[in-house]
């Protein structure tokens, strides 16, 4: 357990260094303006914005950040499910987030607060696809915060289930 965690932290550190190098160059670029209808708005302690102090993203902008794939079991579906989406830590770097917490706000005004370190630590993603298909609102889409629950037992708890917000529309960095 301990060894696992240390190994994880080491690799996370390495990853951070890489990402930090990448994000510096990307942060230098001004955030492009979404061409399609934006599906995510990020506000709060961020340095890169594209509209009135907020960073708006359409689906293509998000997918450009790099899609990753997670296969995990959840309380909400029978059996393991494949999710595809972007790493939340990469997204935070893309907007130059400097806060410690992120408040996720869903379409139904459900809010949940997530420590930013969760993103790197557990590799949580902002999923766009489930089972290879884009998720609609009816299927908890369009954006769904997913932790790789099967990667470590501690994720299988109410805390992380609660942080897994459905139908995410806005993120506020605090």
């Amino acid at each position, binding site marked *: 357990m301990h060894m696992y965690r240390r190994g994880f932290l080491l690799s996370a550190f390495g990853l951070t260094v890489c990402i930090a190098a990448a994000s510096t160059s990307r942060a230098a670029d001004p955030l492009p303006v979404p061409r399609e209808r934006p599906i995510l708005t990020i506000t709060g302690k961020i340095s890169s914005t594209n509209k009135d102090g907020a960073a708006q993203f359409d689906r293509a902008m998000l997918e450009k950040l790099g899609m990753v794939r997670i296969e995990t079991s959840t*309380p909400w579906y029978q059996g393991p499910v494949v999710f595809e989406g972007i790493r939340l830590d990469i997204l935070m770097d893309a907007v130059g987030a400097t806060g410690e917490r992120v408040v996720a706000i869903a379409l139904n005004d459900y809010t949940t607060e997530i420590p930013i370190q969760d993103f790197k630590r557990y590799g949580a993603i902002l999923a766009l696809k489930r089972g290879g298909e884009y998720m609609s*609102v009816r*299927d*908890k889409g369009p954006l769904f915060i997913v932790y790789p629950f099967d990667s470590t037992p501690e994720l*299988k*708890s*109410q805390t992380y289930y609660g942080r897994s917000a459905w139908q995410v529309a806005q993120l506020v960095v605090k």
Partner: protein
Amino acid sequence: MGRLRLLLFLVAALFLAATFYMAALIAERQTSLKEVSRYNIAWLASQAVAEYTRFQQRAAAFSVAGSDVDKDELELRYDILLSRIGLLQDGEFLEFLRSNKDASSIVQSLGAALADAGPLVRRIDAEGASLELMRVLAPLDRPMATLAAAASRYGAARVSEDQQELLRLHLIFSGLSAGLAIFGLTLIVSLGLQNRSLDRARAELMAQNARFDAAISNIPQGLALLDRNGRPVISNAQFTQIVGADPSITSLAAAIPDFVPLGGGAMGMRLRDPAVSVASTHERSDGTTLLVTQREMAGGGSVLTIEDVTDRVRADRQRKQLEAQLQQAQKMEAVGQLTGGIAHDFNNLLTVILGNAEILVEDPGDEESVQLLAGMILQAAERGADLTHKLLAFGRRQSLTPERLDVAQCVEGIIPLLRRAVSENIEIRTEFAPTKSSALVDRSLLESALLNLVVNARDAMGHGGVLTISTGERLASKSTGAGQEGQRVLFISVADTGTGIPPEVLDRVFEPFFTTKEVGKGSGLGLSMVYGFAEQSGGSVEIDSQVGNGTTVSILLPLVLTGAAIEKEELSVKTMSHPDSGCSGRVLMVEDDPQVLQFVAAQVESLGYSVTSTTTAPEALSLLQSGAKFDVLFSDVVLPGGMNGVELAQLVRERHPATRILLTSGYAEEVFANFGRPETENLILRKPYKKPELAEALRATIEGGAGTPERNPARVQRPALERAC
């Protein structure tokens, strides 16, 4: 110790294993603990209810004029509501539905109702669609609430189950912790106990070591333990002292000639003959003698002791010299004892010879009386010769060859000699049982043995008593050299009525130099000589003694058959009278020697006195007691039967003052030393005396009466000679 260590090791290993097992258990339980925290499905139901309510509210608002709710908003809410209903038909909620049939049918009817609502939402702008939607949704209110309540109950039950599981795990961990604690405590206590017992064992070992050291350093010998190679491993100070300051191999070899350093460069030493455990003595050039012992030890190596026995060897030599000196001294003592007695005997004999010879010279008379007188001279001279012979035999140094002896005769022959060896207050009795057997012994040694026994008996009877010498045959009470048990043996016993020997010393009396007598009084060789004699003669010695009742020592000898018989002489009281010349008076004579008695009585009678003869003091006393009147008591000083002449004189003077007293002795000094000099009124006539001296002494006694006392009787003798009666 090894077993305890192993046990401790096992316990520690068990403890370690238990710790690992517990760690593993906790890790495993941690996983399962997290897994028991199951998803709260009540939240899903409440979400569905909330979104249903919101959708209903939006639908109602849509129909109200001026409301800001548009069709997009309504469709979004519818989609969200559908996603929530979809959650109720998938994942963990299905578990709940499987356990609750009512909830399952509610979800189905909800799905169906919402499917009906779909077209209405899409054409919500149409006339009446809004109201129609309200109507479709209205019946769902109650089932929604029921579903939420059931899901909440199910969730609560699951939480309770989780709690139970947590409690169970808590119990398991508590038990494990307690077990581990007890285990650890036991380990600590056992370690402590082991430590204590180790401490105790170490203390005991140290004490033992100290005792061992003390023992080694306090033994008188020099001691060294040699290892397998002969190297000294341990040695004490005494060893160093004898061998030298540096107990190295070289010095050891130099100190003890029998030790040589081992060859081939090997350090160590051994006895020249290493084959056996040995003990040997070595005289060194400096005059000291060492006793060296070496004993092989079972585990290899050996124990070497060296002892300086110079003093012991010297003492041993001195003791042997002293033994020889003592033997000589004992002989001298015996000779001394005999001298007085012999002088007495010879004086008696000389008295007879002188007297008779005198008569022959003065007035030989007729042939018959010459013959009688000459016969008496001859007899006395023969007795003198016999006595001389006995003395010579006794004094002979060389060992004599055994001869057939009539034991009783032999004893009888030596009696006069023995009599001289004892004091006058001891009566010697003899009991000779008739026997046809004789013994094959060395006469002089037998006599010497008898003398030794008699001297012992005398010393046991300091205040007088009876000494009985008996001989005869009897049955052996046990198997001895003299004969098997029940066989007939010859015995010579000497019994006294003395103090007896205590049982604790009885076993030791035959040991050479063992003596209970004062220093200078006895050599301690007497009984051992008797023992040696008896053993050498094929016999044995028995001793029987009781404290206060006297002691009997018997020499047992093997029988040698013979035809000889023994006769004994007996003495009796004889009264002689001889009417004669000038002087007159009644004389009571006491003299134990019959020949002397006969001769002197004849002389006294020839002087004109009437004579009554007795041989013992009690006899004389009883005559006086019976009323017989005597003018003079004429008594020998040395008398048998428990009363000597001095004592008799004292009694007679007290009881019969009319009777004058004249004592005679050739051996009186010792008696006087023991009983005091007689009163001055008693005259003493020294033996041997001639007839005129006798006449003068008798006359002076009768005439003197209570008159002219003389201080020194020895001086009156000579003037008395001048005046014949």
